[in-house]
């Protein structure tokens, strides 16, 4: 049975239960089903069956979640776009996939000039025949395409098939150490353009649990605590930075009813986690790891009270999920022994077919390798530098390139520089991820030369980049430091910035 059939069963079985709570308003599984059916009707009557890739403005409402399921039932993919990101960038993403149709639940959609926009609310029609049954589809059909920042200045698309997603959800379902049921209250803090959202809302909907969303314009960490308090949440899935922010307030937090706490989307520091575990004394804590290319989650580690595995204070990312092969290789793609540091590469049913229309990148990011049993498998080079210890746990060391995580989003610093250099053409400059006083990553822009007004630059960046990619600090230095190889010395630069700040 595939996950869509299971989803249908869950919706029917739990029809009277709450499915989702958005801004203190509850919607039952019946509300959700009815909304899915309404949208499905629109898709069936107005969108050609061959048109597979559909844009979805990721608003925080019932219609947006229902649209995902309605599209899946019609074997179509959703391409989520963030309503706060620049329209130009979102349009570029939609154009790259050739999408012609966009679902937007906002009253006035800014996409109506270039696309056929469907507004679920205005298309409301009462339905006579109710069915959530799944249309015939091909396992290799795409379920969603997510776009991440690319170093050439162009976002890169990662298509994930129904088969990929099914493999992930099946592994979760068969994991006895993680069983969500229809009385659970689950946090859904992720933006839908971020794939970690799928491991927040999908296990919840499949189990008939209730998901609690976090409004996009809120101070997330405080709002999450408010949801935990108000609704006595039992399952938390969060980016690690939430607990880095809440750390000064840990003594005030006590949530004994949290059963599971899952982290995903960034480095998890063992010391903070240890303190956090006292706030949720009865919870099992997991550290998820996985690139979008291998469908959200590829490995996980279970936190223990004592004797955890970590490297440089960063908690282990654990062992690969069932059905995933993980290997550590050197620059020539040769297998490395345990405890040797190299690049983590992944293979298995969750692996994407490759980047959207980007053969050049696919040639460098994927390779075939013969495994011990003689089978040849296609591996993805994650760009994450790791090693495997003698117990088989993977340890995260660092990113291989300059791709960093800002507020959980993957960012290639090269893409930001690319846009800055369009405006600032005369100065040497760089952008750098810097740990701020709260322990979180910020993007700093460092320009060589005498200070000048950067307002025109930032006005321009706001039309080109999503908010989280726009530098939040600007520094002017008389000289950018370089090492003996003539490469920019990022560590030295970080020290200089830190000195300047104190």
């Amino acid at each position: 049975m595939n996950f869509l059939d299971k989803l249908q069963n869950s919706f029917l079985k739990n029809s009277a239960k709450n499915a989702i709570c958005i801004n203190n308003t509850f919607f039952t599984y019946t509300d959700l089903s009815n909304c899915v059916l309404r949208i499905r009707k629109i898709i069936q009557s107005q969108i050609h069956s061959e048109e597979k890739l559909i844009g979805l403005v990721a608003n925080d409402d019932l219609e947006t979640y229902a649209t995902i399921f309605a599209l899946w039932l019609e074997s179509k993919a959703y391409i989520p776009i963030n309503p706060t990101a620049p329209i130009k960038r979102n349009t570029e993403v939609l154009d790259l996939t050739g999408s012609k149709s966009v679902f937007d639940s906002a009253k006035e959609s800014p996409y109506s000039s270039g696309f056929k926009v469907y507004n679920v609310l205005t298309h409301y029609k009462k339905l006579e025949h109710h069915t959530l049954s799944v249309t015939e589809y091909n396992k290799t059909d795409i379920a969603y395409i997510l776009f991440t920042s690319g170093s050439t200045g162009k976002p890169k698309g990662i298509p994930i098939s129904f088969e990929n997603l099914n493999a992930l959800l099946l592994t979760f379902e068969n994991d006895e150490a993680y069983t969500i049921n229809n009385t659970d209250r689950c946090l859904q803090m992720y933006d839908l353009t971020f794939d970690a959202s799928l491991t927040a809302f999908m296990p919840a909907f499949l189990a008939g649990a209730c998901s609690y969303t976090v409004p996009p314009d809120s101070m997330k960490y405080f709002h999450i605590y408010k949801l935990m308090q108000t609704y006595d949440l039992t399952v938390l899935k969060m980016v690690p930075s939430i607990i880095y922010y809440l750390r000064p307030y840990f003594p005030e937090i006590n949530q004994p009813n949290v059963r599971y706490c899952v982290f995903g989307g960034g480095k998890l520091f063992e010391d903070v986690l240890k303190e956090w575990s006292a706030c949720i004394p009865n919870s099992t804590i997991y550290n998820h790891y996985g690139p979008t290319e291998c469908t959200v989650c590829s490995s996980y580690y279970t936190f223990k009270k004592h004797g955890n595995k970590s490297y440089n204070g960063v908690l282990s990312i654990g062992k690969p999920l069932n059905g995933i092969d993980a290997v550590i290789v050197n620059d020539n793609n040769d297998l490395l022994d345990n405890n040797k540091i190299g690049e983590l590469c992944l293979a298995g049913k969750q692996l994407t077919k490759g980047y959207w229309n980007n053969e050049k990148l696919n040639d460098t990011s994927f390779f075939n390798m013969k495994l011990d049993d003689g089978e040849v498998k296609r591996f993805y080079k994650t760009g994450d530098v790791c090693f495997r210890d003698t117990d088989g746990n993977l340890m995260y060391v660092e990113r291989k390139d300059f791709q960093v995580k800002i507020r959980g989003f993957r960012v290639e610093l090269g893409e930001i520089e690319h846009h800055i250099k369009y405006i600032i053409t005369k100065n040497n400059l760089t952008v750098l991820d810097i740990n701020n006083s709260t322990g979180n990553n910020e993007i700093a822009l460092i320009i060589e030369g005498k200070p000048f007004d950067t307002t025109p630059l930032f006005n321009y960046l706001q039309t080109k980049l999503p908010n989280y990619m726009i530098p939040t600090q600007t520094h002017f230095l008389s000289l950018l430091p370089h090492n003996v190889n003539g490469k920019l010395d990022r560590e030295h630069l970080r020290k200089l910035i830190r000195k300047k700040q104190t």
Partner: protein
Amino acid sequence: MTKEAILDKAKESFIKILEHSNFELNPETTANDVDGWESVTHMMIITDIENNFNIKFKLMDLMNMNNVGDLITTIQKELLSD
């Protein structure tokens, strides 16, 4: 301290962290009204205010803080409790 005096002193933290003074702060002002006031800078502003007023906010107050008016009331409450 009067609410006006608290507001003036709190504004210094906003200017320092946001690195601009291109905003008005009144009781109805929210993060949406001020450029650069978002999750990351919010925490830095809160920390700076705590240091300047020599107070420590409670999580319960922070989670119910929806505008500048709430912020000022909370600072006043903390000042009185010391």
